[in-house]
């Protein structure tokens, strides 16, 4: 009934006692214990409540395959709840002084859980019950059934605080990666030691040894081997490291746990993600023992035979004092005999087989252990801990009850082929093992030891569920302990018509818990095979998927949080904006000044002031984020002709053109003003957010469609800082600064580019305007951007120069009807829709998107077309995205004929303006339309998109 510590057993350090709490109660353990072993040593049998039925559960295994004993651990200083981790296996939690652990999924307490009512009503909760039971009334599902079911079922509580820990990551390369530090892996490492090979050896335990850790006969070999490997300069050893996934071309993901075992959380990373590329991989992951399926096999105190051996030899804990072994395999006998030899009381061995090796029988008898053959456990007495078992002969006949305080199960062994399967290595059924073994590799990988089938555990028999005289529906014989799936559920799935294991798995959820079926997959297969009367190999095997064991989000996210989440790209002028009170916004990855509030101005006041200042005098704007591409080569013009809608060949060097870029589908993708600097050299611009995308698209065409063209593309976005100067005083401001360029309107017309010097720095000076005013864009090499900005500011002071941000830029261009790709267009707008027919070169034989523009659907007159809107009440500023209707009295659902794409208060006009796309918009000039808002309906008149200076005279200032 109560476990206890055995002297002279275990690898724990008795000189280092530790204190910890579980559910608020204080206990003692030793360094080297896990939470599970320490609690068992203290006589604790009850660890948790099962997922669905809330049945009391104890430890079933000793390793990562443990399905029941899921606990929550709170690390860190007292009172700090930010390091709360749920759903940890107690068998994997290394004990440290001051550890605080709690059980899960129970209320009000572990011993008296109200949720156990589910166990009473379990006939109503078979597999797939929520498709059958709680279906009526439908309305009750959302408000009642689902929330209640979610609250009742479930494991731990999700943490609610931000994760305060850091997580490190690295790539690593090696010639040989050995996954698993048991005898098989250690042998492989020894073989490679002292060679030139770069070797990495990983093991998920705190010390190397694997299965040898609970085989004292191997301990001196283990010491010698570990010392030899530690002395080997070509071998990197990573302990507390789990290889969770095996990816293409020998790429392995692993997480190294650095601090979870420490009492005081140190500075530095909590975990480290290893991304390893290996020349060869050796898998040495061992095998996992199978439980047996019988009524009551989930009672606390029922566990794997090898777990009992591990608790004895590795941790010095006896799991019981009157133990009964239920065996289908010789290994169980060996474990029981080892327990008996160490002085642990073993009462009886029950074997489902009629015949067992005589030596084992003889040893058992010598140890005073009663033996039963051809019999099975058909029931377990006790609810919170085992009190007895009832056994019966397989063929029928009188049951007998044996008093006991622990029941061990020896159901055979399943090689761990998870990572092998991730790598798409094939599997072959082995009747002796009753399991799948690795067959043909798909990568440069081999399996050694038990995981490859190269281990002698002895002989055994594969069974589905143990024979029982009880009718199945009266038994609770568990297959998947974590998801509460019983043998009954699997047979139900088969009765309901599911034939493939993939369906049976999903219908019953067998193998779908956080343990991913480590102790349930094969038993589930055997039961299904029996129910279907088909061999196991024809039912299929479910797919193994990473991660092998649950991993933290933190380890996978690594640095991608806080300051390193994403680069925030800043221009050379950003520092000035910050020092001058700019309010910023993010555009793609760039930080851009949105407006420059003065005094107590809000955004509207600042923008109004900036807009008026630009049109009345001169404004200065940082346009450095615009994408820039240098297109160079004899075929440069030919290439651009094919990419853009516009004609480029006749463009003279020194002139600029607005370019429109479509996709093959004919829809607008990007735009920008571009300059021809020489017959074979163009300086293209793109939108800020489109720079990378446009370059990729162009490179795609160049490399795959026209590889013979002599033209090359170079991104120059960051080579040039761009200072936009806009307003009637713009020329006056830069005149004294510019050298070698004739700024007079005759020599330097609108849409032209000149090369020269500004403030002693080489410049490409563009005369272009996105505001409709006289304007320039001063391109200087980025290192000089700030200096030139400062000089222009100084020179402009006498002219009342006003810095403005992206918000003002948006308003000013909207007053002139210039579209912003991605705001006024959404990937479904054609040049004609946007009123940009003039940008299409009508005589060009072809360009990207040309054919699509000829499709009938693209020529319809009722397409959504780009128009201006003026609200009836000039003070109404429309909401961007608002839907437009023709008849405000129409019943819902109303016919939506368009939406508002851009909307602003225009200080220049003293009223609101808006741009929109409306069905057949071009033919609706002067028409009144309506915009239903939650509180009122706003009437608007459709108008031209140019609200200000329709003739464009101000450009020629």
């Amino acid at each position, binding site marked *: 009934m109560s476990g206890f510590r055995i002297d002279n057993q275990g690898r724990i350090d008795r000189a280092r006692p530790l204190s910890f709490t579980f559910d608020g109660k204080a206990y003692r353990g030793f360094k080297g214990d896990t939470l599970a072993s320490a609690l068992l040593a203290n006589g604790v049998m009850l660890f948790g409540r099962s997922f669905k039925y809330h049945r009391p559960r104890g430890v079933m295994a000793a390793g990562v395959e443990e399905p029941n004993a899921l606990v929550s651990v709170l690390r860190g200083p007292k009172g700090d709840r930010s390091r709360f981790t749920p759903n940890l296996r107690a068998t994997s939690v290394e004990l440290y002084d001051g550890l605080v652990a709690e059980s899960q999924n129970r209320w009000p307490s572990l011993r008296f859980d109200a949720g156990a009512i589910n166990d009473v009503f379990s006939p109503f909760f078979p597999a797939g019950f929520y498709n059958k039971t709680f279906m009526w009334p439908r309305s009750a599902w959302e408000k009642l059934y689902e929330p209640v079911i979610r609250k009742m079922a479930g494991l731990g509580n999700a943490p609610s605080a931000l994760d305060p820990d850091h997580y490190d990551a690295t790539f690593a390369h090696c010639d040989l990666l050995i996954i698993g530090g048991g005898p098989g892996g250690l042998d492989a490492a020894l073989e490679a030691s002292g060679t030139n090979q770069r070797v990495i050896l990983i093991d998920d335990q705190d010390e190397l040894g694997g299965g040898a850790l609970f085989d004292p006969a191997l301990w001196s070999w283990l010491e010698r081997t570990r010392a030899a490997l530690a002395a080997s300069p070509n071998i990197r050893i990573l302990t507390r490291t789990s290889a969770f996934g095996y990816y293409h071309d020998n790429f392995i993901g692993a997480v190294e746990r650095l601090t979870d075992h420490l009492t005081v959380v140190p500075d530095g990373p909590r975990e480290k993600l290893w991304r390893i590329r290996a020349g060869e991989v050796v898998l040495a992951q061992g095998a996992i023992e199978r439980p047996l399926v019988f009524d009551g096999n989930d009672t606390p105190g029922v566990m794997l035979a090898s777990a009992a051996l591990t608790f004895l030899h590795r941790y010095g804990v006896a799991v019981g004092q009157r133990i009964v072994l239920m065996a289908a395999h010789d290994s169980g006998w060996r474990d029981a005999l080892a327990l008996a030899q160490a002085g642990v009381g073993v009462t009886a061995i029950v074997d489902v087989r009629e015949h067992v090796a005589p030596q084992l029988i003889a040893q058992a008898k010598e140890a005073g252990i009663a033996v039963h053959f051809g019999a099975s456990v058909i029931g377990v007495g006790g609810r919170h801990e085992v009190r007895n078992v009832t056994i019966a002969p397989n063929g029928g006949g009188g049951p007998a009850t044996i008093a006991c305080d622990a029941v061990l199960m020896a159901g055979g062994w399943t090689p761990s082929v998870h990572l092998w399967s991730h790598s798409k290595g094939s599997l072959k059924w082995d009747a002796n093992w009753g399991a799948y073994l690795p067959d043909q590799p798909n990568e440069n990988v081999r399996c050694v030891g038990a995981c490859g089938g190269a281990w002698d555990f002895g002989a055994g028999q594969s069974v589905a569920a143990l024979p029982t005289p009880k009718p199945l529906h009266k038994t609770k014989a568990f297959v998947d302990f974590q998801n509460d799936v019983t043998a009954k559920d699997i047979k139900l799935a088969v009765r309901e018509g599911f034939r493939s294991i993939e369906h049976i798995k999903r219908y019953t959820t067998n193998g779908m818990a956080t343990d991913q079926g480590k102790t349930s997959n094969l038993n589930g297969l055997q039961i299904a095979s029996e129910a279907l009367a088909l061999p196991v190999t024809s039912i299929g095997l479910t797919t193994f998927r990473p991660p092998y064991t649950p991993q933290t989000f933190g380890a996978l996210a690594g640095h991608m949080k806080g300051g390193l989440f994403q680069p*925030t790209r800043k221009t050379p002028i950003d520092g000035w904006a910050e020092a001058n009170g700019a309010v910023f916004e993010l555009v793609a990855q760039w930080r851009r000044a949105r407006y420059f509030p003065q005094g107590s101005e809000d955004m509207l006041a600042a923008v109004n002031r900036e807009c008026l200042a630009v049109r009345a005098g001169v404004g200065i704007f940082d346009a450095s984020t615009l994408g820039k591409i*240098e297109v160079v080569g004899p075929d440069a013009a030919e290439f651009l002709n094919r990419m853009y809608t516009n004609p480029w060949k006749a463009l003279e060097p020194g002139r600029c053109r607005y370019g429109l870029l479509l996709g093959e589908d004919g829809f607008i993708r990007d735009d920008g003003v571009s300059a021809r600097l020489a017959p074979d050299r163009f300086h293209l611009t793109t939108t800020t957010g489109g720079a990378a995308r446009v370059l990729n698209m162009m490179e795609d065409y160049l490399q795959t469609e026209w590889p013979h063209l002599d033209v090359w593309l170079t991104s120059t976005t*960051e080579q040039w800082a761009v200072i936009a100067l806009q307003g009637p005083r713009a020329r006056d401001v830069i005149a004294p600064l510019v050298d070698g360029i004739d700024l007079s309107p005759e020599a330097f017309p609108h849409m032209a580019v000149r090369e020269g010097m500004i403030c002693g720095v080489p410049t490409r000076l563009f005369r272009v305007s996105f505001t409709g005013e006289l304007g320039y864009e001063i391109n200087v*090499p980025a290192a000089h951007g700030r200096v030139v900005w400062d000089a222009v500011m100084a020179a402009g002071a006498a002219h009342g120069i006003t810095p403005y941000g992206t918000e003002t830029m948006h308003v000013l261009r909207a007053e002139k009807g210039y579209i912003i790709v991605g705001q006024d267009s959404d990937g479904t707008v054609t040049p004609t829709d946007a009123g940009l027919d003039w940008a299409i070169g009508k005589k060009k034989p072809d360009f990207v998107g040309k054919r699509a523009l000829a499709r009938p659907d693209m020529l319809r007159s009722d397409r959504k077309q780009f128009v201006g809107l003026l609200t009836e009440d000039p003070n109404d500023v429309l909401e961007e995205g608002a839907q437009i209707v023709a008849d405000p009295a129409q019943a819902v659902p109303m016919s939506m004929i368009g939406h508002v794409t851009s909307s602003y208060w225009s200080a220049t006009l003293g009223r609101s303006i808006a741009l929109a796309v409306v069905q057949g918009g071009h033919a609706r000039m002067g028409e009144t339309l309506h915009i239903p808002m939650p509180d009122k309906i706003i009437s608007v008149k459709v108008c031209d998109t140019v609200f200000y200076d329709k003739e464009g005279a101000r450009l020629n200032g």
Partner: protein
Amino acid sequence: MANMITDALACARYNLRARDAALLETVTGLNLPSIIGETRDGVAMLGSDEWLALLTEGTKLPMGEGQPVSIVDVSDRSVGIIVEGLHAIDILSAGCPLDLARWPVGRASRTIFELVEVVIIREADTRFRVEVWRSFAPWLREALKTASNALTA
């Protein structure tokens, strides 16, 4: 030697493209490496038709007008970051997936550091030069320093 992450001195940078390497050599007067990944006299061959030239600050190359070449001044586009020390490879391996330990001195490649595109050149056994676009440099310096701190923690 302690690990150091410092900014490289300013230099001239040119992106050189051509199908015909010999023509490019004639136009620029430079001695171009002929194997992808090699460097010669400050010029790295990044691709079958692409070279990155890192030259003395202020160097001006001819533009090759009319020739089937592309010579573009990108001096201000990038900054150079020097990662030096016994752990230089480990620091870079925190974010770069290449097997830098197997690089001979003089090897170069365009690659990534986590999310950011870089060009890495092995200048010496324990010294690497990382070229990165100007606006990504603050993030990269921070990421390299974080990696360096974690190694010496």
